[in-house]
């Protein structure tokens, strides 16, 4: 995949010098991150590097104590979460946050802000995740982990969104479901949706990512095209302590 030329247009999402404090803990120490329009950017890093905190800060769930976040030309640093969501950002959290008491259908209805979900759109989603159709009227709490993940992603797909923030979607999932997820992401990207993906799964990262940013200790230590990182084994070892080459 060719990485989009970042100089040609303004990045869709830009974080500059973002610090986040949670209580007494200083988690993000000046994060600089850019995601170009239409690309699938992967955010990598060891556990505890601050990846989830970054996503949550973008989404406004945690307040950035300093720095700025720009989305689509607007400064969203101080906006409240609902406003950020309405600006066109969808969030798929690490714990999925599927509403157990609501049926699959109700979960999607809730996510569809502009009225009932479009039938064609739902059919399209169900083509990736057939289980959703099966469990359509079941409480989401009855679903397995993988199926819940499908619901969580479906919620982000039920209406066109500009940017998707996805936090470790494939964690603990069976390969077949991972495959479906990857297909869905590819489709979304083909439709022009930008995706910022936190992922540890090597296969997914290599196959989908256009650019890779690596975080450590609360800031971004490397950013660049995926090809660069994928081609440099020493760099991979240094930054991540592991290899991105699935054959090693």
């Amino acid at each position, binding site marked *: 995949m060719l990485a989009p030329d970042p100089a040609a247009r303004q990045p869709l999402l830009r974080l500059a010098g973002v610090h986040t404090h949670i209580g007494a803990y200083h988690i993000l120490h000046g994060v600089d991150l850019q995601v170009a329009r239409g690309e699938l950017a992967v955010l990598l890093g060891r556990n505890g590097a601050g990846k989830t905190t970054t996503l949550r800060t973008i989404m406004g769930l945690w307040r950035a104590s300093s720095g700025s976040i720009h989305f689509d030309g607007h400064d969203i640093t101080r906006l409240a979460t609902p406003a950020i*969501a309405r600006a066109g950002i969808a969030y798929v959290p690490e714990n999925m946050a599927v509403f157990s008491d*609501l049926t699959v259908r109700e979960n999607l*209805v809730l996510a569809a*802000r502009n009225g*009932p979900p479009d*039938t064609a759109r739902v059919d399209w989603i169900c083509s990736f995740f057939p289980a959703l159709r099966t469990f*359509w009227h079941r409480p989401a709490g*009855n679903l397995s982990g993988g199926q819940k993940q499908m619901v969580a992603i479906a*919620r982000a797909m039920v209406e066109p969104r500009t940017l998707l923030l996805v936090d470790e979607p494939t964690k603990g999932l069976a390969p077949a479901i991972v495959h479906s997820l990857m297909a869905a992401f590819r489709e979304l990207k083909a439709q022009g949706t930008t995706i910022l993906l936190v992922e540890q799964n090597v296969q997914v990262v290599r196959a989908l990512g256009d650019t890779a940013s690596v975080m450590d200790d609360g800031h971004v230590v490397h950013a660049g095209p995926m090809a660069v990182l994928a081609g440099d084994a020493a760099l991979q070892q240094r930054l991540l302590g592991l290899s991105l080459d699935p054959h090693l």
Partner: protein
Amino acid sequence: MSIAPVAPPADSQLPAIRRDIAPLLLVPLLMLAMLPLVGNLATWLTLSVAGLAMGMMIFIMASGLTLVFGLMNVINFGHGAFIAAGAFSATLVLLPLRGWLEMDSLTLNLGVLALAIVVAMLVTGLLGWAFERLLIQPVYGQHLKQILVTMGGMIVAEQLIHVVWGAETIAVPLPTALRGAFLLGDAAIDKYRLVAVAIGMVVFVAMYLILNRTKIGLLVRAGVEHGEMVEALGYRIRRLFVMVFAAGASLAGLGGVMWGLYKETLTAAMGGEIMVMLFIVIIIGGLGSVGGCFIGALLIALVANYAGFLAPNVALVSSIVLMVSVLLWRPAGLYATGRG
């Protein structure tokens, strides 16, 4: 919301829907179990209707409390203020229109009653809105301060009732057409109690429909589970909070009117007096569960009535015993919502 499901393939294995029916059986089982103990069918009928009526009123009063806790994680120790305020506001209609209430016309009586209820619910809705903005909003997430602040709010509200309406108790006699009882064989069934049961059922059904069939209800149910995710989906949950709080206050006001008419006297402390019982009910039902609250309220009232007849000495502690028994069976209440 007209998306038809595709029929699942014939050989797929769907996990069985686990429906939690045990709590639903409690009320009928209790009533049946008491029949042989009471002995007399007529007495049993009277006691049961009394218990159901009382239970409905308690449910109406407590429903707001449990919903607010479930959705907002806010505990309102001042809920009694809405009950008293509702009852007293109703007098703004009931006293001037006393004449119509004394006439033996069902339509007139019910009409005045309905008007009084509307007034009471409006006043308490407004009071609830004010309560939320002034007292509750600054202390989200801090249970300790919530308990203290809302108690303070109730003290002030009670005193203000004294100021506005005077310190004495106010007598509110039942409307004439609602006095007395139907005779069913040997059993005397108070007309007013039937009205109470009817109103209670209407409220319960309405709440059920709103929670399960409307988008707002969807938001509330989702918000009870995961308020943060509801916000991340683009909804301003704060506005929802205020609405639900005001609605809960209105319901308490309705309950207050009914409760006041039941006792036929109003005192400023009437809300505070019943708070303990309301807390027991929502603990039994499970903090945040409307269905649990409904069952809990009926259970408490029925047990109190049966105990009052069978063993008056234990009647007082019957509520506590019931609460402990339920908690031993289900430590988070009948229907746990994950909040308590």
